[in-house]
């Protein structure tokens, strides 16, 4: 478990550098179990910084819109560090403009799963990690819940609990929590075309096209998104199954070889659309077809801008 004091100390060290604009971290949210992104720009604010299993935001999302010349400090979990690698590879931000504080993360708590177990109080809450359990203290009452039952799905299969890139690491290196076996994707693939469509039709029918999935995504940063393009207008603004489906196909496709499975799109979605089931499918395919992993190592080239002459071509006539 990451000590807040240690984390705060690292942030203070970063802030000693002259050309640091701010450090992206977490602080306690406005109520209950909430935490919130925190732009630390003054030394006296550092004491508010925390890290806990409630710190679910992928802070690298804020870097995508950052064009400042100064340096930025950022706190990343294992999964978030992959987004950062991807952004550095895509030349969105140079590595040397970043001070990266890695935090080892034993899994973050999924608010949807949590709300079914513990109702959220206004304040007086605490959580600590104890082996493979979380111990919640709510108004003085303690409750233990096994991690696997309450963390995000992505955490159950997390192969990178320790960040892959960092300047400072807070907390000890952690062994992988699980292995990504794509069991959900594989199960879904077994369905007939009709059943697959039936499922996705129901999901996409809910979509209200707020584009939160896009805005929250660290690697969705086109200056003009095709969804907003008016001339030619590929996507109509009307919300119906045809436009919604195309939006989700395009979104998943544009993230092929770029999505690092941080799960923010699915978390942000106000209509509970299982977007990770889509993202994971693409991730699995490109791993199988092209032996490609997004955001794993620096200096890898973008998936769709490279090729091998012997890439698989089973269906081509």
């Amino acid at each position: 478990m990451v000590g807040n004091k240690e984390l705060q100390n690292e942030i203070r060290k970063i802030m000693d550098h002259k050309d640091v604009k701010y450090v992206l971290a977490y602080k306690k949210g406005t109520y209950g179990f909430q935490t919130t992104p925190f732009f630390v720009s003054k030394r006296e604010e550092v004491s508010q910084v925390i890290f806990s299993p409630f710190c679910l935001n992928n802070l690298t999302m804020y870097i995508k819109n950052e064009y400042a010349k100064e340096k930025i400090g950022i706190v990343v979990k294992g999964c978030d560090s992959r987004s950062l690698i991807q952004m550095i590879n895509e030349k969105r931000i140079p590595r040397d403009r970043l001070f990266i504080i890695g935090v080892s993360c034993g899994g973050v708590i999924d608010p949807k799963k949590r709300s079914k177990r513990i109702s959220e109080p206004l304040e007086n809450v605490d959580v600590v990690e104890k082996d493979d359990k979380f111990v919640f203290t709510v108004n003085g009452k303690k409750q233990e819940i096994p991690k696997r039952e309450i963390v995000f799905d992505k955490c159950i299969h997390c192969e990178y609990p320790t960040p892959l890139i960092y300047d400072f690491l807070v907390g000890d290196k952690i062994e992988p929590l699980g292995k990504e076996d794509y069991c959900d994707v594989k199960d879904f693939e077994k369905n007939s075309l009709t059943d697959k469509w039936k499922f996705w039709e129901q999901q996409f029918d809910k979509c209200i096209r707020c584009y939160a999935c896009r805005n929250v995504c660290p690697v969705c940063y086109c200056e003009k998104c095709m969804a907003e393009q008016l001339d030619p207008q590929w996507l109509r603004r009307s919300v119906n199954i045809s436009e919604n489906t195309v939006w989700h196909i395009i979104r998943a496709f544009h993230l092929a070889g770029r999505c690092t499975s941080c799960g923010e799109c699915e978390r942000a979605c106000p209509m509970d659309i299982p977007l990770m089931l889509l993202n994971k499918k693409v991730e699995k395919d490109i791993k199988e077809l092209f032996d490609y992993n997004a955001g794993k190592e620096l200096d890898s080239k973008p998936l769709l801008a490279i090729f091998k002459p012997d890439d698989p071509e089973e269906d081509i006539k």
Partner: protein
Amino acid sequence: MIIDKNKINAFINQIISDHIVFAPVKNKDMVLFKQIKKPDEMTLDYNNSRIPPKSIYLPQTETLFRFSKNQNINLETPKKDGRTLLFGIRPCDAKSLKILDQVFTGEYKDSLYLSRRKNSILIGLTCHNPSLNCFCTSVNSSPADTDGLDVLLTDIGDKYYVELITSRGGKIVKNFPGFKPANKEDKKKKEEIVKKAKDSIKRHIKSERLASILDSIFENKYWEEIARKCLGCGICTFLCPTCHCFDMQDETAGDKGARIRVWDSCMYPEYTMQASGYNPRPYQMNRIRNRVFHKFNYLPKNNQVFGCVGCGRCITECPVNIDIIEVVNQAREVKKDE
């Protein structure tokens, strides 16, 4: 009046026969207002719907008129819906519809919205178990507010306490034999439940003199601070029961087409972007400030109501914990403009 819980289904069956009935329907972890054909499709065990019922009167996508582009251009207004009934709406959402009514009437009447509203009966359900982020009591409302409703039901155990608010509501109740007069005991029970609900609301906006306080801090850096972590995703506006902004677009296929409107959000940069490329609200700061001012300054000034009913949806669903209660309460502490 009262109605036994086991008679509710019969009542719903009766109203389904001559109304299009919308009611809360469970969809996995959320509840949405959907048209129901049978009473057992609905659920009354819910806090509030994810999407506010404004979507019934101001659908996310709506045809304004159709056109055909042969030699002679023809324009045609879409057909009106029939009589509708909304069952199980929460008092906060009913109040929001009254706020929207003010927007869509006035000098130019929006016939599409208003005809839907006019032909719709609202049967409300007292909010006996408000959520953590509910704050209706801060914005001149309460869990059993009757404003905007035709009938209000309150769950008092094995029956509902029934309040008739309008004559329309009275008529629909009169037509069903299951309603019986309430006794003192029922009334007392109802009052207890409402009081308990009110007391369980823990979060509050300090709304006194809010409009003038906001006027004095328009230029403050505070808004930049708030906007910094905003994604600009627009969830708060789409899920807001009083947000009504829309975009208008033409769609065509061959020589036929339509002008449609779709929900839009002031949180998007495109919203105010002019054809020349100039954008009067270029930063998220401008947009988030506009949203807060619209709710707590512009609408109070123009229509003498808050543009907020305290449903808490924007707080609960915000992916980055931008909390309107805190935004407003902290705004009071901010240093005034010169």
